[in-house]
């Protein structure tokens, strides 16, 4: 065999021109960063757009939308014997202070059988508190803080904003991923990470609302401070944090 051909052949083995020189791991990191940035920009744009639109809608439209998406309570295990009179009285006091809450819902209160300290508000204004919360928190100011926090979400129209964002997210994910489930999971996961930041912002606003409400009602914010001290002492596992609504 000609030595030159042999040398050239050996060089070809070492210098492979058919494979890209960039490491696939490095390329993957660049791709993820690019995707993260694009989805972040999209989330920021839709968040602002939807928040702007929802804030502009009239009270009548808000009520109509809430009825359309109102929560189905039939699947929840309600504690029928629970006394919600005390909670209703607190809610009525908070509603009387804020025009944003008036003439929209009666804010009925339901107690659900659950062994976690939790509360949430449905789009139609129904407030749900867990039996564990009722058993643990007896102090009126602390209960007022929890209820005011939930009413804060309602006053800020967070429920409608969340529904709007979910619709936008669904349309965007389905459009971009086509029928590719791997890409769909990735897009959903990245948008969930962005959503966490937004969710914290909503919770902070609701806490501020609740703090202001109890200050107006009782002249101090002790109820809020004591409530946070209480839940800090509760053993909350990693997975519980994800499902915690308060």
């Amino acid at each position, binding site marked *: 065999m000609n030595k030159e051909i042999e040398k050239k052949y*050996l060089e070809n083995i070492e210098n492979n021109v058919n*494979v890209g020189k960039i490491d696939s791991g490095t390329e993957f990191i660049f791709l993820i960063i690019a995707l993260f940035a694009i989805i972040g920009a999209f989330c920021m744009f839709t968040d602002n757009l939807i928040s702007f639109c929802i804030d502009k809608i009239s009270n009548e439209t808000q009520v109509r939308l809430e009825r359309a998406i109102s929560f189905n309570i039939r699947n929840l295990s309600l504690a029928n014997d629970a006394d919600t009179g005390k909670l209703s009285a607190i809610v009525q006091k908070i509603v009387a202070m804020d025009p944003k809450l008036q003439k929209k819902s009666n804010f009925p209160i339901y107690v659900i059988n659950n062994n976690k300290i939790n509360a949430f508000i449905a789009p139609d204004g129904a407030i749900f508190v867990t039996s564990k919360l009722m058993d643990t928190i007896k102090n009126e100011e602390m209960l007022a803080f929890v209820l005011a926090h939930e009413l804060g979400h309602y006053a800020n129209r967070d429920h409608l904003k969340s529904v709007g964002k979910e619709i936008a997210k669904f349309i965007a994910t389905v459009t971009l991923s086509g029928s590719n489930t791997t890409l769909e999971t990735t897009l959903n996961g990245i948008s969930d990470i962005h959503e966490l930041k937004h969710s914290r912002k909503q919770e902070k606003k609701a806490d501020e609302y609740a703090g202001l409400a109890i200050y107006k009602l009782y002249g101090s914010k002790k109820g809020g401070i004591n409530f946070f001290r209480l839940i800090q002492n509760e053993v909350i596992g990693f997975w519980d944090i994800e499902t915690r609504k308060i």
Partner: protein
Amino acid sequence: MSEILLLLTVIVITYITGTVIEKNHYKSIIKREVALVKKPIINAGAKTWNSKKKIKKIELVSGEVVISGDYFKNFAATLKSFFGGRLTSFESVLDRGRREAVIRMRESAKGANFIINTKIESVMINNYYSNNSVPQCAIIAYGTAITYE
């Protein structure tokens, strides 16, 4: 959130295993290619063979390989197809498959001087209509081995 964590775990594991497997495969390919440098020369273009030497044997030789990209490569390619461009993660898979098939063909042509009219063909053997399937490719290299007396 748990879905994305699971996905990330699978990606990291398959990246590590895929990289180790690929490096070992390339080591094996290079070693065998170097060993075959003086063995039957491949001529892909020749349809006829003119030589004054007497031919002892003519036979069909072939090398086949079925190769698959790992989950990480598939995932990286999915992301890349979102933006467009070269799917570099699959280039190495195709390269390994092609070289392995050619090596196997040359190894099967024991004692031959030339392999003429060599052709390389590939076919997808998985269900490529399925979104979750990892691409699996069969590569076949075949040619006519000529042995002089």
